[in-house]
């Protein structure tokens, strides 16, 4: 699907070196001290560029500290096509697992946000480009089904430069339909689903659950769209407008509700959930009414 954006380099964790090292901000090229950067939730203190944030780091930064429980971690990836390109799927998958310490691109947890119980999902853009194969699709689907059963809101952080995962062929494509159907059924419970788009969200992830949120939020500067910019540029043989497919561009074109700085994600989502459901968050800053 919509693979291949030159800007994907910006999300690779190679920008974030091991502790004690410096890293270059992809936004302003300033050298950043990694320990500082982590304290800033991987946001550049000079230009505000939102750097890549891994799934578990995101979950820790977003949810209350206590009572985070991973769900569906037992689902493991198979190789139904016995897919082999220049390298085999199995090889690519194992290498990615070893590098990231994750089993798959999606992590689903049950936890609390300022005391509000909810289900949170993250697709990690660094795991096979955050692409959706059977396991990612199944985990997202189960997240909605479990939330419906337990009457919990859902927040999904999507990050996927890869869209539907090529290595699982048509089965990946079907995950788009499966997750979208799960959102449809979840929608009937009257519970909120907030889609939180991070850099980058393209292709089959974008054209399924990510764009089906009751409310769609995006991080500043995130690349958002169906077809990646490089493919559009090549196919159409045209220059792209400035800022094309950034979250800000998409917001101006009416595709998303709001841009939220990473430091505000807890407060903003808690307030939205509170306004939607009437549940009071604990310790959320209220909007001041003049």
């Amino acid at each position, binding site marked *: *699907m919509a*693979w*291949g954006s030159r800007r994907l380099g910006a999300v690779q964790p190679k920008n974030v070196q091991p502790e004690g090292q410096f890293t270059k901000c992809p936004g302003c090229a300033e050298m950043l001290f990694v320990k500082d950067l982590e304290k800033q939730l991987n946001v550049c203190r000079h230009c505000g560029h939102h750097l890549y944030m891994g799934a578990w780091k995101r979950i820790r930064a977003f949810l209350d500290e206590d009572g985070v429980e991973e769900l569906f971690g*037992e*689902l*493991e*990836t*198979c190789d*139904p*096509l016995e*897919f*082999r*390109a*220049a*390298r085999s799927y199995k090889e690519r998958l194992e290498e990615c697992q070893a590098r990231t310490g994750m089993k798959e691109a999606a992590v689903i947890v049950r936890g609390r946000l300022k005391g509000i119980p909810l289900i949170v999902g993250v697709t990690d853009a660094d795991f096979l480009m955050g692409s959706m*194969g*059977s*396991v990612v*699709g*199944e985990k997202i*689907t189960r997240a909605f089904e479990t939330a419906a059963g337990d009457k919990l809101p859902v927040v999904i952080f999507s990050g996927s430069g890869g869209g*539907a*995962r*090529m290595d*699982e*062929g*048509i*089965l*990946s*494509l*079907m*995950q*788009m*339909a*499966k997750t*979208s*159907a799960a*959102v*449809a059924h979840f*929608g009937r419970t009257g519970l909120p689903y907030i889609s939180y788009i991070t850099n980058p969200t393209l*292709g*089959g992830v*974008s*054209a*399924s*659950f990510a*764009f*089906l949120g009751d409310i769609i939020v995006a991080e500043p500067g995130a690349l*958002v*769209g*169906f*077809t990646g910019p490089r*493919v*559009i540029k090549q196919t*159409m043989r045209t220059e792209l*407008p400035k800022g*094309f497919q950034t979250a800000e561009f998409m917001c101006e*074109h*009416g*595709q998303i509700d709001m841009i939220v700085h990473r430091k505000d994600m807890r407060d903003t989502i808690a307030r939205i959930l509170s306004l939607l459901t009437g549940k009071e968050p604990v310790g959320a800053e209220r909007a001041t009414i003049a």
Partner: protein
Amino acid sequence: MSESNAFNSNMYLPFEKGLHELDVQIRRLEELSKRNNMDFGEEISNLARKREEMAKELFSRLTPWQKVLVARHPARPQTLDYVGAMCEEFIELRGDRCFADDRAVVTGLARIAGRRIMVVGQHKGRDVRERNACNSGCPHPEGYRKAILKMRLAEKFGLPIVSLIDTKGAFPGIGAEERGQSRAIAQNLQEMSVLRTPIVCVLIGEGGSGGALGIGVGDRLLMLEHAYYSVITPEGCAAILWKDHEKKEEAAAALKLTSADLKAFGVVDEIVPEPVGGAHRDPKQMAETLKAAIVRHLDELARIPMDQLVAARYERLRKTGVWRIAQAAGVEVQETARAK
């Protein structure tokens, strides 16, 4: 019609060279016999028999990439050809009521074997002008919005939906992105999955990724024998995973995109056989075969109570995918749609 049409179309695929040569010989003999008033009847029928055998043999063992070429054949019947051949009546309905009328998607009220239906289909266009107007069957968001608008209409009036899929993919353009290509497709997937009317989808040619799926969620998925359905075009896959566009044949094989593969995965319910040489060699027969299959499935679905139908549609999607469950003592493999 089929033979002369096949020759006049003069569009042989690279692997049909042998057929082309035989056709040339047959035509020469026919001309010769006409001009000189000689009888080459026996030679001609021998050659014709040989051609028939060769075509049968060739098309029974097409490689995945060859199937892609057949699915993209410029003379392959398209949505409007099928509508014209299968339906007694068709009233086209246009526009998405928001922005435009996307010619890449055709929608309308129709009657097929006496049954009232809503037709939704992607149309590529035949000549240059029509292809330009249709963007060669690559829909913009307006196409998906038009489709879902007419499908809601179908639900309201209790009409089953027949969706004919034939696209290389959703249109990759600036305007398409500005107007929400992702959202348009996603919304169709969401709404089609719970629409309270039967939906029969047919892959008639190219099934290009999310662009195809955007009108492809339903109760049945039929697939023409030589159509393909893939998460990405073989060329795109080759460019990304081999870093080489020329590896498209390998990519086509690796992606498991043929009707037989998809049947084995349980994604496709029924393969609709094509005439020897592909649908374009005998469009009339193809339309007849397809019509019979569509009508049979419409009648089956009509007997299922609506709640049960919608629940079954979710179950159908719910079971797609292959994974295994890790357990403390070993690993249990779930055998859902496993490839042969």
